[in-house]
């Protein structure tokens, strides 16, 4: 085959490959790249959604820098994420460790632990609204939690969990963790089951106790899975909003606002589409930064 024919074959081969990815590329451009660029474009405008747009340059971003409510909402999402990273993932890991052992009915537990994540956030919100209901009727607590606390001899702990700024966000974070721990549990359990059992046997032969085996075998082997679970927890928790809406409606003043709710509010309450887009861009940047830091951390841990 001469050079020319060879080159033509390569071009044909490349074109063929290109055509194979073209549909996915077109769909990606139409549904991801174009809306994203459009959002960035809109963030430089003042616009009510209908009618003419006014170019205002970086004014939306400038306003956003000084918008305390916005940064508070980012802080709230960070707090929910912190609770999810610690409480939710610790719970998921503990349960995964328990189910990895030869215990009775472990398949049943695996299914039960996976029920909360498959429920819709609206359903979870409604369910917990009933559990946390602070009202009383005919001298009895309507909410299950307060009823339980009262009848178990802890009347001093009866509380309006979602109506008190001191407890509302933590309550939401705990419910979010309850809903989300099943994902981590499944991934960590799958990770634990891939660890070669011979490693445990070898460690035992070397005289290692349960703690040593856990810290020197289990943790290093499952570390990549833990890091993936952490990244997914961060991204999922930072973007929480349906659960918040279904638990506290438009919010307890601004104490339960999270970034997506602020973005929604800018669009639907105050009709500031341009400002909402600027918020979305900044929030996207925050998420990319967090993911980047996690990636760097993950690479460093893997090297160690």
């Amino acid at each position: 085959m001469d050079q020319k024919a060879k080159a033509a074959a390569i071009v044909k081969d490349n074109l063929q490959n290109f055509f194979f990815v073209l549909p996915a590329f077109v769909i990606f451009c139409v549904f991801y790249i174009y809306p994203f660029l459009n959002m960035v474009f809109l963030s430089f405008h003042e616009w009510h959604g209908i009618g003419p747009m006014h170019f205002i340059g970086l004014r939306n971003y400038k306003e956003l820098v000084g918008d305390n409510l916005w940064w508070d909402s980012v802080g709230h999402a960070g707090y929910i994420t912190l609770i999810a990273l610690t409480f939710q993932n610790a719970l998921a890991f503990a349960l995964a460790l328990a189910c990895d052992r030869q215990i009775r009915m472990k398949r049943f537990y695996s299914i039960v632990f996976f029920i909360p994540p498959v429920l819709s956030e609206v359903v979870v919100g409604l369910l917990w609204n009933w559990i946390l209901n602070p009202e009383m009727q005919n001298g009895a607590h309507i909410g299950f939690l307060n009823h339980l606390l009262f009848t178990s001899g802890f009347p001093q702990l009866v509380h309006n969990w979602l109506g008190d700024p001191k407890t509302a966000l933590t309550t939401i974070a705990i419910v979010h963790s309850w809903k989300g721990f099943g994902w981590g549990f499944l991934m960590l359990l799958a990770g634990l089951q891939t660890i070669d059992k011979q490693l445990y046997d070898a460690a035992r032969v070397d005289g290692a106790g349960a703690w040593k085996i856990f810290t020197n075998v289990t943790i290093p082997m499952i570390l990549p899975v833990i890091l993936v679970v952490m990244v997914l927890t961060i991204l999922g928790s930072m973007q929480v909003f349906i659960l918040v809406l279904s638990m506290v409606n438009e919010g307890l003043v601004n104490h339960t606002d999270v970034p997506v709710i602020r973005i929604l509010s800018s669009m639907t309450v105050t009709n500031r589409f341009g400002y909402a887009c600027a918020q979305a861009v900044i929030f996207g940047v925050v998420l990319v930064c967090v993911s980047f830091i996690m990636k760097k951390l993950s690479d460093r841990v893997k090297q160690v």
Partner: protein
Amino acid sequence: MRKLGALCCCLMLFVFAGCSNPSRPSHKILLWHWMTDCNDTFLKLAQEYQKETGIEVDVRLFAPSDSYSQMIIAAAQANVLPDIYGILNTKSIVADFIKAGLVTDLTRDMNADDGAWANSLFDKALADKRFEEGNIYGVKAGIYGVPIDVTDEQMLYNKKLLAKAGIATPPRTYDEFIKDAQILNRVGITPFVSGWGELWLVDCFASNYAFNIMGPEKIFATYRGQVKYTDPDWIKVLSVFADLRDKGVLIDGIVTKGNKYAEQDFALDRAAFAFNGSWCVNVYHDMNPNLDYGVMLPPPVSTAYPLKIWGGAGSSFVVNTGSPNKDEAIAFLKWLTAQKQQVLFARQTNNLPSNKEALKEALRVVPPILGKFSKGMDQSTHPTVWPVNEDPLVIDVFDKGIQAIIIGEKTPLEVVRDVQTVKDRLMAKRN
């Protein structure tokens, strides 16, 4: 290779065809609405209309109303609005739709035959989408929407619970209301519930008392920036909420309560008073058909000005200017708001009809409580008919401020200062 290329072209054609304005066969009217409780009735009426005229009306429900509202804005941007739709937004956004040429001016049709259509409907309901000469929105004067029903927001009282507390008649003044609330508290009955997790309801309640304390002129002057929110009258308005909190009138968790939960609380005898709209008649009936309750105006706190409640058009439809079936759509709306159809609508949905004659007839067939709601229309007003509206950003801070007062986080004075700060910022931006 050629086949692959053709496949890609087909795919792209498919994608772009999906983005284009869907062509509809003529004489088929497309109607988008958000009223879950009225959907069956709309479908029934559409069938009836097709039988009478041969014109098909494709009724499509998109709920909840928040999502519907955003969907309409998105459809307007993509130029795929249906023939008939509703705009559930502030008057300034309605004005933007009109200025963008998305809403048909119905004045000529309304005024035809000596104004037969316009005269058949309640004036306060028509005012919802009417723009007067020289309006601040810069819209050509005219009527741009057709009201389907009328509604107002009042207070409800549970007769059984009041009797249980030994209260013979509902309160007529604010002081009587507070006294009754304290009696109710003593016998372990929660006095008052409302869905104040939905900020518009808080805003509505506050607005009632603002009218009562300072009258409309001062309110509008505040919106124009001529009176400050730090004025003692605005502090008085917010002090009503502080007082309700201090006297233990409000149900626990009221600031995060959705209206559906509040409706449930009232229907299930968990609170003696509620603040809700006339649509609640249908809702309460579904939740507890045996609920025995009455309607009253919110008890006035002052004798300076009459207390005004929010009311007027419950739901209005507009006609898409770009619709190929514009005339058919207008004819359908005319038919829909005629007496016979409106009586059927009222009977089926327990909503107050927008047609005056239909209301008289409907009151014989709908629950009597609706008749009492209809009497409140005389004292009704609504932001859509005011000559000026407050900026949504200020309203948001005001409403959240009320929440902060209720949970004891801020005083009325602190809230009015916060509101005025935002107002000043917006005024400076505008100037």
